[in-house]
């Protein structure tokens, strides 16, 4: 991990990795944190599978963290039939069953946030709370999400970072053929799900069904998915809370991990108090 992001979080918590077969798909899962703690299912953003970042460490301090690689990213392959966001919703419902996880907190970033929002629409009774970080899934007319597919890998990394992209933990040593092929492979999954439309046209209407405690996190300088998307999620999910992080881009959970986690903790503590 890069020095720039060691940011006082301290030494890494112990993590374990395993591969489980879910819907016939060999699924790579990273787990960490106290086994008896409340479970938290974390769904990563596109191109961020099989990564262990500060944010994982922070989450694992409080939760039994379950961080699978989304099919098509990291070490989990995507079968050809899997090409619709609903396939992913059913996949992660089955993942919860396979792991026998009851009432987890569900957190998702960007693409993972889209899947999380859909899961919360369809299976709210299986979840305890929802955390959406810079989530995809909606369209706000006049404020399009940037066209990732038109950007080179370098341009993409520059767009999503607010600070120096070269100090990102996943800035490659070289943009060589191997790296570009991996990007092409993972972009193919994103394209299968989100080329056109790059959102779920039915989601805005359905978000009103969510009654879970919901936290929405956004960086005020997110150039990929503009902050107006955070406001739109907040307006559509009754009782949800929006925290906008200043001086933060699309990767607030990496570049501003402490603030991001601070907002999550504040939200969770509030939930705990109201539950007592």
């Amino acid at each position, binding site marked *: 991990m890069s020095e720039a992001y060691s940011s006082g979080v301290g030494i890494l918590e112990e993590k374990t990795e395993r591969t489980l077969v879910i819907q016939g798909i060999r699924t790579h899962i990273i787990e960490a944190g106290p086994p008896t703690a409340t479970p938290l299912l974390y769904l990563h953003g596109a191109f961020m599978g099989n990564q262990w970042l500060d944010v994982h460490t922070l989450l694992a301090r409080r939760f039994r963290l379950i961080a699978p690689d989304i099919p098509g990213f990291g070490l989990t392959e995507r079968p050809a039939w899997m*090409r619709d966001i609903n396939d992913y919703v059913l996949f992660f419902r089955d993942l919860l069953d396979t792991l026998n996880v009851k009432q987890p907190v569900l957190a998702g970033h960007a693409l993972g946030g889209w899947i999380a929002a859909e899961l919360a629409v369809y299976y709210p009774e299986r979840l305890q709370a929802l955390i959406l970080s810079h989530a995809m899934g909606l369209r706000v007319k006049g404020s399009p999400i940037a066209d990732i*597919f*038109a*950007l*080179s890998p370098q341009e993409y990394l520059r767009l999503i970072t607010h600070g120096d992209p070269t100090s990102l933990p996943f800035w490659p040593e070289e943009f060589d*053929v191997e790296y*570009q*092929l991996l990007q*092409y*492979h993972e*972009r*193919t999954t*994103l*394209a*299968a799900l989100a*080329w*056109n439309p790059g959102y779920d046209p039915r989601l805005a209407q359905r978000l009103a069904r969510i009654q879970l405690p919901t936290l929405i996190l956004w960086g005020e300088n997110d150039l990929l998915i503009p902050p107006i998307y955070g406001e739109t999620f907040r307006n559509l999910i009754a009782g949800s809370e929006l925290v906008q992080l200043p001086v933060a881009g699309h990767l607030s959970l990496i570049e501003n991990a402490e603030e991001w986690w601070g907002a999550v903790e504040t939200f969770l503590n509030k939930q705990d108090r109201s539950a007592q």
Partner: protein
Amino acid sequence: MNKLQFHYFHLMPWPDLPADFDERYDSAWITLPNSIYNPDKGHFLYNRYFDELERADKLGWDSVIVNEHHQNAYGTMPSPNLMAAVLTQRVKRAKIGIIGNALPLHDNPLRVAEEIAMLDVISGGRIISGFVRGTGMEYFSYNINPTESRERMEEAHDLILQAWTRPGPFAFEGEHYNYRYVNIWPRPIQQPPPIWLPGTASSETIDFAARHRYAYMTVVMTLAQRQRAYDMYRRFAEERYGYEARPEQLGFSLPVYVAETDEIARKEFEKYVMWYFHKGLKTRPEFFCPPGYMSERTMKGLLQSGLPGAKQTFKELVDTGVVIVGSVDTVIEKLSYYSEVLHAGLLVTGGHHGQIPDYLVLKVQELMAKEVMPHFRDKQVPLVEPDIALMQEVV
């Protein structure tokens, strides 16, 4: 049987790019502002281009060919079937090729089946129907999911072929295209019109062409790459489908320029053909290969070799056989390699590149028709103008 057929191809480019195009724009496609296009000049250009095609017909070329591209300066024929409709009224003898309609871009490919059938009936059965997937750029311009490109291509092909040849009404039940009633009026004269598939040598397309016995046409590649593509076609035909591929199944589309001497030809051709490679084809790598458009194996090859023509010099393009340029003797020698050694029987070329003046286009058209073509024509059957009156009598 002629050793080589001569097909005259036009891209109908928009040649007038700004002087600072190279520095200012990274693509002649998708994002190049259309304020650069001047409709009044466009009116002149379209009609000049039609004149060139009409001339090719009169000079004895076997066909005239148009194709489909969107939102770009490289080729301004977003609706190739419209262009073919015009040609049915201007071109009286030659076949008319649409090489081709970009099937996956169409949400309703039955429309393509109908339009080709109309053109075939109007032209008296002179249509050659190419099917293409379209360039990667087209998937941005039409916002079609590139990960579904091959599936849509194969399914639209099946639909169109059935619509042309199977008595209707019948139902077509596909994953991407679904119809309760397929029953096109009119039906085409040819059952079916000949189908050509242009390709950049991906094994998937070559297999598809070999399986259906369609003509496979190599585009923008070196002689060595074309040779490998033909070998693959012949191997698939023999080993997988049990037949021997004929020269009429192997085509090659490339710029050919012929002039009085090798030196004159090179000197005259260089700047015009380099417009095609360095300006017309210029685009962002991300536009050229959107995710899922190519197999990862093909993508790897492309990443290693770079975009076709993007960096090569004129000399490299000539030396590797991406283009053919020279005197009549030189051009005959190079084309003979295709017909004699590679046994490829369909030459597809045009005289128009960039801002080339019309008198040079005319010179190439005439030298090709009068000096080069006869070398490859069957001596027993000299080319003659068909007797229209006689044809009408027969009808």
